[in-house]
């Protein structure tokens, strides 16, 4: 594989981490949302990462050695867990007993996830920069 292919692996991870950050900010924005088009309170969303699939022909050509792959977001999963119920009879979304279901989002969890996403993003920026530096260095041979 050439250096550009290596940079593509890094780029796939940057894309995946951006989607993750998108989902986190959606969760944080909706931390108090009690009404959604699907009905009920907003549910926490999270990304599912999977190793990027390569095409069959590509796989066949490289069958002699272990193939390095990038990453992609397979799907965005919804956490089915119940949210916290808060007693607030005056709330428009309160049930017959006066309880309102809040989204099942933990602020601390989301902030931690955000820091991890940033860490991964930075690490992948470093690999791309390293690949670039190595390619530029190789151009200096014989100069």
């Amino acid at each position: 594989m050439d250096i550009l292919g290596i940079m593509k692996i890094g780029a796939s991870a940057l894309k995946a981490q951006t989607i993750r950050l998108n989902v986190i900010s959606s969760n944080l924005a909706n931390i108090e949302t009690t009404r959604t088009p699907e009905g009920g309170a907003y549910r926490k969303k999270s990304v599912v990462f999977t190793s990027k699939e390569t095409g069959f022909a590509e796989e066949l050509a490289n069958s002699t050695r272990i193939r390095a792959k990038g990453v992609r977001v397979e799907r965005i999963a919804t956490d089915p867990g119940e949210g916290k119920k808060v007693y607030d009879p005056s709330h428009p979304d309160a049930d017959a007993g006066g309880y309102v279901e809040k989204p099942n989002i933990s602020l601390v969890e989301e902030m931690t996830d955000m820091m991890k996403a940033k860490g991964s993003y930075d690490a992948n920026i470093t690999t791309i920069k390293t690949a670039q530096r190595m390619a530029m260095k190789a151009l200096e041979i014989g100069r």
Partner: protein
Amino acid sequence: MPVKGIFDPTIRVLDKVLGLRTQKLEAISANIANAETPGYSRIRVDFETALHDAVNGAGGGQARTHPGHLSGTAGLENFQAIVNREKDLSGIGDRNSVNREQEMVELSENQIRFDAAVRMLSKKFGMLKFVIQEKG
């Protein structure tokens, strides 16, 4: 006197090293990209010891039993890195065996060694250039 290969074994070894270092970079960047993919086993590319043995004709290399046989470095053309996957054996978490810190260390080490090989190759070519230049 026929010129029996302008490019000496050192150049061939360095050339091979650049390819192997690129392959290692590919594995490291895939590992870092998949640092949070559940069930991912890190790819490990190993060639330092094997390459050393191949160059010196020790270990796995065959001994020269006849002067007509090719020397140890001839095996370089077909030299391949040992690539395998390291499974996560801790039994906890999401079965991902990537340690991002370890990968970052390997990344910078790999880069430094790549640069060293490039520099040595440049010096070798510089020497060749020097000897073939016309006296002005």
